Protein backbone atom coordinates (compact mmCIF):
# COMPACT_ATOMS: atom_id res chain seq x y z
CA UNK A 1 0.00 0.00 0.00
CA UNK A 2 1.23 3.54 -0.66
CA UNK A 3 2.33 5.60 2.30
CA UNK A 4 1.49 9.18 3.10
CA UNK A 5 4.39 10.78 4.96
CA UNK A 6 4.18 14.16 6.60
CA UNK A 7 7.26 15.89 7.98
CA UNK A 8 7.11 18.70 10.55
CA UNK A 9 10.38 20.63 10.76
CA UNK A 10 10.97 22.49 14.03
CA UNK A 11 13.43 25.07 12.69
CA UNK A 12 12.99 25.30 8.94
CA UNK A 13 12.43 23.37 5.76
CA UNK A 14 14.73 20.33 5.48
CA UNK A 15 16.64 21.61 8.53
CA UNK A 16 17.19 20.38 12.08
CA UNK A 17 14.88 18.26 14.22
CA UNK A 18 11.64 17.03 12.69
CA UNK A 19 8.85 14.58 13.27
CA UNK A 20 7.55 12.34 10.54
CA UNK A 21 4.24 10.53 10.63
CA UNK A 22 3.66 7.70 8.17
CA UNK A 23 0.30 6.20 7.36
CA UNK A 24 -0.35 3.67 4.62
CA UNK A 25 -3.55 3.52 2.67
CA UNK A 26 -5.11 1.24 0.05
CA UNK A 27 -4.74 1.91 -3.66
CA UNK A 28 -7.46 4.29 -4.71
CA UNK A 29 -8.20 5.08 -1.09
CA UNK A 30 -7.28 8.05 1.03
CA UNK A 31 -5.37 8.98 4.17
CA UNK A 32 -5.25 11.90 6.53
CA UNK A 33 -2.85 13.18 9.16
CA UNK A 34 -3.69 15.89 11.66
CA UNK A 35 -1.80 17.82 14.27
CA UNK A 36 1.81 18.88 14.43
CA UNK A 37 3.27 22.31 14.89
CA UNK A 38 6.37 23.43 13.10
CA UNK A 39 8.27 26.04 11.17
CA UNK A 40 7.74 24.14 7.92
CA UNK A 41 6.14 20.97 6.64
CA UNK A 42 6.59 18.56 3.77
CA UNK A 43 4.16 15.93 2.57
CA UNK A 44 5.08 13.06 0.31
CA UNK A 45 2.89 10.44 -1.28
CA UNK A 46 5.20 7.46 -1.43
CA UNK A 47 4.32 4.59 -3.76
CA UNK A 48 4.93 0.97 -2.85
CA UNK A 49 7.78 0.63 -5.27
CA UNK A 50 9.78 3.49 -3.80
CA UNK A 51 13.41 2.52 -3.12
CA UNK A 52 15.23 4.49 -0.43
CA UNK A 53 18.85 4.62 0.60
CA UNK A 54 19.72 5.94 4.06
CA UNK A 55 22.84 7.94 3.14
CA UNK A 56 24.49 8.25 6.56
CA UNK A 57 24.09 4.55 7.23
CA UNK A 58 25.25 3.64 3.72
CA UNK A 59 28.41 5.74 4.00
CA UNK A 60 29.32 4.52 7.47
CA UNK A 61 31.22 1.49 6.27
CA UNK A 62 34.49 0.39 7.86
CA UNK A 63 36.28 1.04 4.55
CA UNK A 64 35.08 4.63 4.26
CA UNK A 65 35.76 5.37 7.91
CA UNK A 66 39.27 3.98 7.47
CA UNK A 67 39.78 6.16 4.39
CA UNK A 68 38.73 9.23 6.36
CA UNK A 69 40.89 8.38 9.32
CA UNK A 70 43.80 7.90 6.92
CA UNK A 71 43.33 11.43 5.60
CA UNK A 72 43.55 12.97 9.03
CA UNK A 73 47.12 13.08 10.23
CA UNK A 74 49.30 15.29 12.39
CA UNK A 75 47.18 15.56 15.48
CA UNK A 76 43.85 15.54 13.65
CA UNK A 77 41.17 12.98 14.41
CA UNK A 78 37.57 12.26 13.47
CA UNK A 79 35.18 12.88 16.35
CA UNK A 80 31.88 11.77 14.83
CA UNK A 81 30.40 9.24 12.51
CA UNK A 82 29.42 10.21 9.00
CA UNK A 83 26.37 12.42 8.82
CA UNK A 84 24.36 13.49 5.79
CA UNK A 85 22.09 16.37 4.92
CA UNK A 86 20.10 17.50 1.93
CA UNK A 87 21.05 21.06 0.94
CA UNK A 88 19.71 23.31 -1.78
CA UNK A 89 22.38 24.45 -4.22
CA UNK A 90 22.37 28.11 -3.10
CA UNK A 91 23.27 26.96 0.41
CA UNK A 92 26.34 25.02 -0.66
CA UNK A 93 29.30 27.13 0.51
CA UNK A 94 31.02 27.32 -2.89
CA UNK A 95 27.80 28.33 -4.68
CA UNK A 96 29.12 31.82 -5.38
CA UNK A 97 32.06 30.38 -7.31
CA UNK A 98 29.71 28.97 -9.96
CA UNK A 99 26.05 29.89 -9.36
CA UNK A 100 24.99 28.38 -12.67
CA UNK A 101 26.52 25.03 -11.83
CA UNK A 102 23.13 23.67 -10.82
CA UNK A 103 19.57 24.87 -10.65
CA UNK A 104 18.77 26.78 -7.48
CA UNK A 105 16.03 24.31 -6.62
CA UNK A 106 18.38 21.32 -6.95
CA UNK A 107 19.38 19.53 -3.79
CA UNK A 108 22.78 18.04 -3.17
CA UNK A 109 23.75 15.56 -0.49
CA UNK A 110 26.19 16.91 2.03
CA UNK A 111 28.17 14.06 3.65
CA UNK A 112 30.19 15.30 6.58
CA UNK A 113 31.92 14.50 9.84
CA UNK A 114 33.41 16.38 12.76
CA UNK A 115 37.10 16.57 13.56
CA UNK A 116 39.43 17.73 16.31
CA UNK A 117 42.97 18.99 15.84
CA UNK A 118 45.51 19.14 18.62
CA UNK A 119 47.73 22.19 18.48
CA UNK A 120 50.94 23.33 20.21
CA UNK A 121 50.65 24.98 23.64
CA UNK A 122 50.46 28.49 22.22
CA UNK A 123 47.22 27.81 20.27
CA UNK A 124 43.78 26.60 21.17
CA UNK A 125 42.76 23.24 19.77
CA UNK A 126 40.49 23.33 16.74
CA UNK A 127 37.11 21.64 16.27
CA UNK A 128 35.15 21.68 13.06
CA UNK A 129 33.71 19.65 10.24
CA UNK A 130 34.68 18.47 6.79
CA UNK A 131 32.00 18.14 4.11
CA UNK A 132 31.71 16.58 0.68
CA UNK A 133 28.85 17.47 -1.63
CA UNK A 134 27.38 14.79 -3.88
CA UNK A 135 25.24 15.55 -6.90
CA UNK A 136 22.91 12.82 -8.12
CA UNK A 137 20.79 12.70 -11.25
CA UNK A 138 19.03 10.43 -13.70
CA UNK A 139 20.73 10.30 -17.06
CA UNK A 140 19.16 10.03 -20.49
CA UNK A 141 18.93 6.25 -20.13
CA UNK A 142 17.11 6.63 -16.79
CA UNK A 143 20.07 5.37 -14.79
CA UNK A 144 21.02 6.88 -11.46
CA UNK A 145 24.36 8.68 -11.73
CA UNK A 146 26.33 10.95 -9.47
CA UNK A 147 29.59 12.61 -8.67
CA UNK A 148 31.38 14.42 -5.88
CA UNK A 149 30.68 18.05 -6.62
CA UNK A 150 32.99 19.72 -4.12
CA UNK A 151 34.20 20.01 -0.55
CA UNK A 152 34.36 22.39 2.35
CA UNK A 153 35.69 22.69 5.86
CA UNK A 154 35.18 25.06 8.70
CA UNK A 155 36.32 25.07 12.29
CA UNK A 156 36.63 27.09 15.43
CA UNK A 157 39.78 27.50 17.46
CA UNK A 158 43.37 27.31 16.28
CA UNK A 159 44.08 30.84 17.41
CA UNK A 160 46.04 32.91 17.67
CA UNK A 161 48.79 31.48 15.47
CA UNK A 162 47.80 28.04 14.18
CA UNK A 163 45.05 28.61 11.61
CA UNK A 164 47.65 28.84 8.84
CA UNK A 165 49.13 25.45 9.63
CA UNK A 166 45.68 23.93 10.09
CA UNK A 167 44.50 25.35 6.77
CA UNK A 168 47.57 24.07 4.96
CA UNK A 169 46.96 20.58 6.29
CA UNK A 170 43.23 20.65 5.48
CA UNK A 171 43.76 22.17 2.03
CA UNK A 172 45.89 19.16 1.22
CA UNK A 173 43.91 16.44 2.95
CA UNK A 174 40.28 17.36 2.28
CA UNK A 175 40.36 17.46 -1.55
CA UNK A 176 42.14 14.11 -1.61
CA UNK A 177 39.10 12.58 0.05
CA UNK A 178 37.00 13.14 -3.07
CA UNK A 179 38.62 10.34 -5.04
CA UNK A 180 37.86 7.45 -2.66
CA UNK A 181 34.35 8.81 -2.15
CA UNK A 182 33.81 8.94 -5.92
CA UNK A 183 35.06 5.37 -6.22
CA UNK A 184 32.61 4.27 -3.53
CA UNK A 185 29.84 6.15 -5.30
CA UNK A 186 30.72 4.59 -8.66
CA UNK A 187 30.73 1.12 -7.16
CA UNK A 188 27.40 1.65 -5.44
CA UNK A 189 25.77 3.12 -8.53
CA UNK A 190 27.12 0.23 -10.60
CA UNK A 191 24.97 -2.08 -8.50
CA UNK A 192 21.97 -0.20 -9.84
CA UNK A 193 23.19 -0.03 -13.42
CA UNK A 194 20.60 -2.57 -14.61
CA UNK A 195 17.77 -0.59 -13.06
CA UNK A 196 16.05 2.36 -14.62
CA UNK A 197 14.17 5.01 -12.69
CA UNK A 198 11.59 7.63 -13.48
CA UNK A 199 11.88 9.83 -10.40
CA UNK A 200 14.55 10.92 -7.95
CA UNK A 201 14.00 12.85 -4.73
CA UNK A 202 15.36 13.21 -1.22
CA UNK A 203 13.65 12.60 2.09
CA UNK A 204 14.83 14.12 5.37
CA UNK A 205 16.30 11.67 7.85
CA UNK A 206 16.56 7.95 7.26
CA UNK A 207 13.61 7.79 4.90
CA UNK A 208 11.72 5.54 7.27
CA UNK A 209 8.31 4.27 6.28
CA UNK A 210 7.58 2.85 9.70
CA UNK A 211 3.93 3.47 10.54
CA UNK A 212 3.27 6.21 13.05
CA UNK A 213 5.45 8.89 14.52
CA UNK A 214 9.25 9.08 14.36
CA UNK A 215 11.60 11.88 15.43
CA UNK A 216 14.78 12.48 13.46
CA UNK A 217 17.11 15.32 12.50
CA UNK A 218 17.42 16.58 8.92
CA UNK A 219 20.92 17.92 9.68
CA UNK A 220 22.15 14.44 10.50
CA UNK A 221 20.73 12.25 7.76
CA UNK A 222 19.02 12.25 4.40
CA UNK A 223 17.62 9.48 2.25
CA UNK A 224 17.82 9.13 -1.50
CA UNK A 225 14.55 7.91 -3.01
CA UNK A 226 13.95 6.61 -6.51
CA UNK A 227 10.93 5.18 -8.28
CA UNK A 228 11.19 2.65 -11.11
Amino acid at each position, binding site marked *: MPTLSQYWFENGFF*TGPFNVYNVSYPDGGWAWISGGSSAATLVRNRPDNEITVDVAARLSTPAILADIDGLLTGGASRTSGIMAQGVFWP*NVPYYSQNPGGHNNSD*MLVRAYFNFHINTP*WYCSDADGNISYYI*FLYLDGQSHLQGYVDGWSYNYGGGGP*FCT*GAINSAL*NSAVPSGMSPLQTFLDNDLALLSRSTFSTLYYLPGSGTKSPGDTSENADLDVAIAV*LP
Partner: protein
Amino acid sequence: METKILERVQHILREDGFIHISKTSSTHAVTISADKGAQRLVLHITDQTELPAKALQNAEIPTVADIQLTASMPGVSTDATGRVLQRAGLGGAVTKSAVSTKSQG
Protein backbone atom coordinates in the same frame (compact mmCIF):
# COMPACT_ATOMS: atom_id res chain seq x y z
CA MET B 1 57.43 35.00 2.24
CA GLU B 2 60.80 36.17 3.57
CA THR B 3 61.76 34.01 6.54
CA LYS B 4 65.52 34.58 6.82
CA ILE B 5 64.95 36.65 9.91
CA LEU B 6 63.61 33.54 11.61
CA GLU B 7 66.83 31.67 11.01
CA ARG B 8 68.72 34.47 12.75
CA VAL B 9 66.20 34.45 15.58
CA GLN B 10 66.61 30.71 16.05
CA HIS B 11 70.39 31.20 16.19
CA ILE B 12 70.00 33.93 18.81
CA LEU B 13 67.64 31.79 20.87
CA ARG B 14 70.10 28.90 20.91
CA GLU B 15 72.91 31.23 21.92
CA ASP B 16 70.76 32.56 24.73
CA GLY B 17 70.05 29.08 26.11
CA PHE B 18 66.56 28.47 24.77
CA ILE B 19 65.72 24.84 24.12
CA HIS B 20 62.88 22.91 22.47
CA ILE B 21 63.07 25.29 19.56
CA SER B 22 60.39 24.19 17.10
CA LYS B 23 59.36 25.68 13.82
CA THR B 24 55.94 25.22 12.21
CA SER B 25 55.56 26.34 8.61
CA SER B 26 52.48 26.73 6.47
CA THR B 27 51.77 28.38 3.15
CA HIS B 28 51.44 31.84 4.62
CA ALA B 29 52.97 31.67 8.07
CA VAL B 30 55.89 30.45 10.12
CA THR B 31 55.80 30.06 13.88
CA ILE B 32 58.75 29.45 16.17
CA SER B 33 58.37 28.41 19.77
CA ALA B 34 61.02 27.76 22.40
CA ASP B 35 61.45 27.67 26.11
CA LYS B 36 64.10 28.40 28.72
CA GLY B 37 63.16 27.31 32.19
CA ALA B 38 59.79 28.84 32.94
CA GLN B 39 60.02 31.26 30.05
CA ARG B 40 58.17 30.38 26.90
CA LEU B 41 58.53 32.28 23.65
CA VAL B 42 56.48 32.38 20.45
CA LEU B 43 57.39 34.24 17.31
CA HIS B 44 54.88 34.27 14.48
CA ILE B 45 55.28 35.79 11.04
CA THR B 46 52.57 35.78 8.40
CA ASP B 47 51.68 37.56 5.19
CA GLN B 48 47.99 36.71 5.13
CA THR B 49 44.99 36.45 7.41
CA GLU B 50 43.91 32.83 7.52
CA LEU B 51 40.17 32.19 7.75
CA PRO B 52 39.06 28.98 9.42
CA ALA B 53 36.87 27.92 6.50
CA LYS B 54 37.21 27.06 2.83
CA ALA B 55 35.04 25.53 0.12
CA LEU B 56 35.80 24.60 -3.45
CA GLN B 57 33.94 22.98 -6.28
CA ASN B 58 35.56 19.85 -7.66
CA ALA B 59 37.83 20.89 -10.54
CA GLU B 60 37.32 17.49 -12.16
CA ILE B 61 33.56 17.33 -12.38
CA PRO B 62 32.70 15.04 -15.26
CA THR B 63 31.23 16.62 -18.35
CA VAL B 64 27.64 15.50 -18.28
CA ALA B 65 25.44 16.14 -21.26
CA ASP B 66 22.45 13.97 -20.56
CA ILE B 67 21.09 15.03 -17.18
CA GLN B 68 17.39 14.31 -17.46
CA LEU B 69 16.29 14.68 -13.88
CA THR B 70 17.77 15.99 -10.65
CA ALA B 71 16.53 15.81 -7.08
CA SER B 72 14.80 19.13 -7.22
CA MET B 73 11.92 21.05 -5.77
CA PRO B 74 11.11 23.47 -8.56
CA GLY B 75 10.15 26.89 -7.34
CA VAL B 76 11.72 26.56 -3.92
CA SER B 77 14.08 29.39 -3.11
CA THR B 78 16.04 29.80 0.10
CA ASP B 79 17.86 32.60 1.87
CA ALA B 80 21.47 32.49 3.01
CA THR B 81 20.59 30.44 6.07
CA GLY B 82 18.64 27.87 4.09
CA ARG B 83 15.27 29.19 5.18
CA VAL B 84 12.65 28.75 2.48
CA LEU B 85 11.34 32.13 1.45
CA GLN B 86 7.86 31.20 0.29
CA ARG B 87 4.89 30.52 2.51
CA ALA B 88 3.94 27.43 0.54
CA GLY B 89 4.70 25.45 -2.56
CA LEU B 90 3.55 22.32 -4.27
CA GLY B 91 4.52 19.99 -7.03
CA GLY B 92 3.59 16.71 -8.58
CA ALA B 93 6.11 13.93 -8.78
CA VAL B 94 8.69 15.24 -11.21
CA THR B 95 9.52 12.43 -13.57
CA LYS B 96 11.85 12.06 -16.47
CA SER B 97 9.12 12.50 -19.00
CA ALA B 98 8.14 15.83 -17.46
CA VAL B 99 11.45 17.59 -17.77
CA SER B 100 13.60 18.66 -20.63
CA THR B 101 17.19 17.74 -21.13
CA LYS B 102 19.63 19.87 -19.21
CA SER B 103 23.18 20.19 -20.37
CA GLN B 104 26.04 20.82 -18.08
CA GLY B 105 29.61 21.46 -19.06
